[in-house]
């Protein structure tokens, strides 16, 4: 048909969606490392990229990332999951109980299964009964906490080193240890060559008792990306989050996919809890999750409902938390400078984007931070404790208008609503 296609020319042009090249992630890491090395040079803070920091950061990041991954699965299928925290809590107990009685890997499995139980409740409530997702999630958080404390009092009291609020020590998950490489990198680190040593430190952290669970978790991130964006299963699942009625009109069993997604979500959250109990520490403890389920949710939104972004979000949080906990004072102090510089960059960018008011505000923030940096030479402990939260908040304030959640996220869908 001769005139075919002119409607596009009239219709709105496609949103400028800059596609990132394949290697963007490596590039980002490289840049990050370079930046931090520079920061160490400038500020003299020496713990920004040490083996210990990297190792501890990994430990801090993984549970948040796994929780976020759980959120990613369910929200991509259109089910909001505030219950992540609860499912994590269930996971910690699962790891504690099965880990103690049947060994490390049983603990991992136990954590996943317990998390899935939580997911099952959420799925039944939201998918089958059409309960508001938030309500169900909140309820699950309450139930999980009570259930776990109750279970702990039943199962751990009287065991050696066990009690109302903690399980006995759990056998460790095996970890990777390549000593000669570790020593090799260690030597380079000690040479203190700009950037090289820092890179070596990272490498060293990756070969000295790196828990297999860390590796597995990182793989899960990749697998998630592949399954959701490269398989038909993933396409169907995402379509349930974008437009369930369209999906159903094409014969997709929407409810089944939502159900599956929420179960997987629970499993991942459970694993996150298990990780806390088995790798981050070595036994179940009451209140061990410390709101990391919510943080995971935040990291996922931060990451725009995408695995890469999620990793960035949880990384940012985990890293600044680690700095606060380790050397604390001067590392966080150094971080101030970094943020100030970034803020200035942001301000310039905003000015370019004709967002004068935003630019001014950002600029003021930047200057304030800069002044603060030179005014004090160590950050008081209370404030280094709040660093991760403040940083997350700041970063979001700069860059959160581009976020786009799945179109049907949080909506209750009933069969036969197509058309």
């Amino acid at each position, binding site marked *: 048909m001769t005139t075919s296609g002119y409607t596009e020319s009239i219709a709105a042009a496609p949103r400028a969606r800059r596609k990132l090249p394949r290697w963007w992630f490596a590039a980002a890491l490289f840049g990050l490392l370079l930046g931090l090395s520079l920061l160490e040079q400038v500020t003299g803070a020496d*713990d920004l990229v*040490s*083996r*210990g*920091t990297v*190792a*501890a950061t990994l*430990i*801090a990041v993984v549970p948040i990332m796994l929780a976020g991954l759980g959120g990613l699965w369910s929200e991509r299928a259109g089910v909001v999951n505030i219950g992540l925290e609860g499912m994590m809590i269930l996971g910690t107990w699962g790891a504690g109980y099965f880990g103690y009685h049947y060994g490390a890997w049983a603990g991992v499995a136990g954590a996943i299964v317990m998390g899935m139980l939580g997911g099952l409740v959420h799925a039944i409530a939201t998918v089958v009964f059409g309960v508001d997702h938030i309500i169900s999630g909140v309820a699950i958080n309450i139930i999980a906490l009570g259930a776990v404390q109750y279970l702990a*009092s*039943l199962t*751990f*009291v*009287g065991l050696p*080193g*066990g*009690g*109302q*609020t*903690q399980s006995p*020590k759990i056998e460790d998950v095996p970890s990777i240890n390549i000593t000669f490489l570790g020593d090799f990198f260690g030597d380079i680190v000690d040479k203190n060559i700009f950037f090289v040593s820092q890179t070596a430190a990272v490498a060293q952290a990756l070969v000295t*008792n790196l828990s297999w669970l860390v590796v597995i978790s990182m793989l899960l991130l990749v697998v998630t990306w592949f399954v959701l964006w490269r398989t038909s299963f993933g396409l169907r699942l995402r379509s349930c989050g974008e437009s369930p009625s369209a999906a159903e009109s094409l014969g997709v069993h929407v409810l089944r996919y939502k159900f599956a997604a929420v179960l997987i979500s629970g499993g991942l959250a459970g694993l996150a809890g298990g990780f*806390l109990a088995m790798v*981050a*520490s*070595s*036994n179940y*403890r*009451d*209140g*061990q999750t*410390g709101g990391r389920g919510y943080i995971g949710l935040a990291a996922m939104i931060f990451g725009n409902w995408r695995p890469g972004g999620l990793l960035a979000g949880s990384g940012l949080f985990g890293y600044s938390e*680690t700095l606060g*906990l*380790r*050397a*604390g004072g001067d590392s966080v102090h150094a971080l101030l400078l970094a943020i100030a510089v970034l803020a200035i960059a942001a301000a310039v960018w905003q000015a370019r984007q004709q967002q004068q008011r935003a630019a001014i505000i950002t600029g003021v923030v930047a200057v304030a931070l800069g002044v603060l940096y030179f005014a004090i030479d160590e950050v008081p*402990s*209370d404030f280094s*404790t709040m660093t991760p939260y403040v940083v997350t908040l700041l970063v979001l304030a700069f860059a959160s208008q581009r976020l786009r959640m799945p179109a049907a996220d949080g909506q209750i869908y009933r069969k036969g609503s197509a058309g």
Partner: protein
Amino acid sequence: GSDSEGGDSGTDSPSSDAPKSDIKVGMAYDVGGRGDQSFNDSAAAGLDQAKEEGLIADAQESEAEDGEAETAREERLRTFAEAGFDPIIAVGFAYAPSLTKVSEEYPDVHFAIIDDASLEKVPNVASLVFAEEQGSFLVGAAAALKTESDHIGFIGGVETPLIQKFEAGYVAGAKAVNPDIEIDVKYLTQVPDFSGFGDPAKGKTAAQGMYDGGADIVYHAAGGSGGGVFEAAAEAKAKAIGVDSDQYNTADPSVQDVIMTSMLKNVNVAVHEYLKAIDGDSFPSGVTTYDLKVDGVGYSTSGGQIDDITDQLDDYKQQIIDGDITVPDKP
């Protein structure tokens, strides 16, 4: 399937000789309760010992929930009182406000509270307090004597005045040995977030930070989080100092030999002696301070890692007892 450790403990430790006493003790733990491998456990130990020795007929236990209402603590004490338990032991200073109320409501019931002396005027309350700073002074000195890098650390669970006493004593002790020693201090959480007493992950990260930073001995007053500190020490092939009880005996074998010594805060002794002092209807009251003098606090030597410096430590101990050294209780 019931969890009332105490309920069973009346029977599960059958003392051969029938109990000579009819005392029923109500034990109100702080958050964590029996099995927290910290001072609740220590108190429980004292109770069990008393039971073994037949000093008491029966004991019932209950523990606080995290972030619970004041009324919940009051009710816990009242329920004990109503149920005819006497004496009732409140473990932890958190009970001070509620005990103030309840001890008035039940003048004929006897109470004891650990770690608080604000009720010393009340006739039916015995306050059992400790000179943590004195014990901490000694382990501080030990650390300063043992360190090879002249760099040590302190990790507190939650930044409360009580834990600050540990810090103050530790620092004073270390400085007494070596005035220009470097001491890292870190608290894991702030009130009302008490997770710092139960978060080994945090403890480990913080300790690793100190060890990587050059410290070779770290003293923790962080309850359950201490486990993480020991793990970090083991990985860094460095030393750590335990707290409250002799953690060398309770800790997991894998980390046993990093525990150079432990600051002993003998809550068990306090509880045991309190129960022992009861005779007929006369109950102890007023403030009893457990300090070095009465061996209410001290340091452990199991593992034999500080045998070479015990005499120096005992020398400091004597000076403190004699009052030649007064240990600060605030940083």
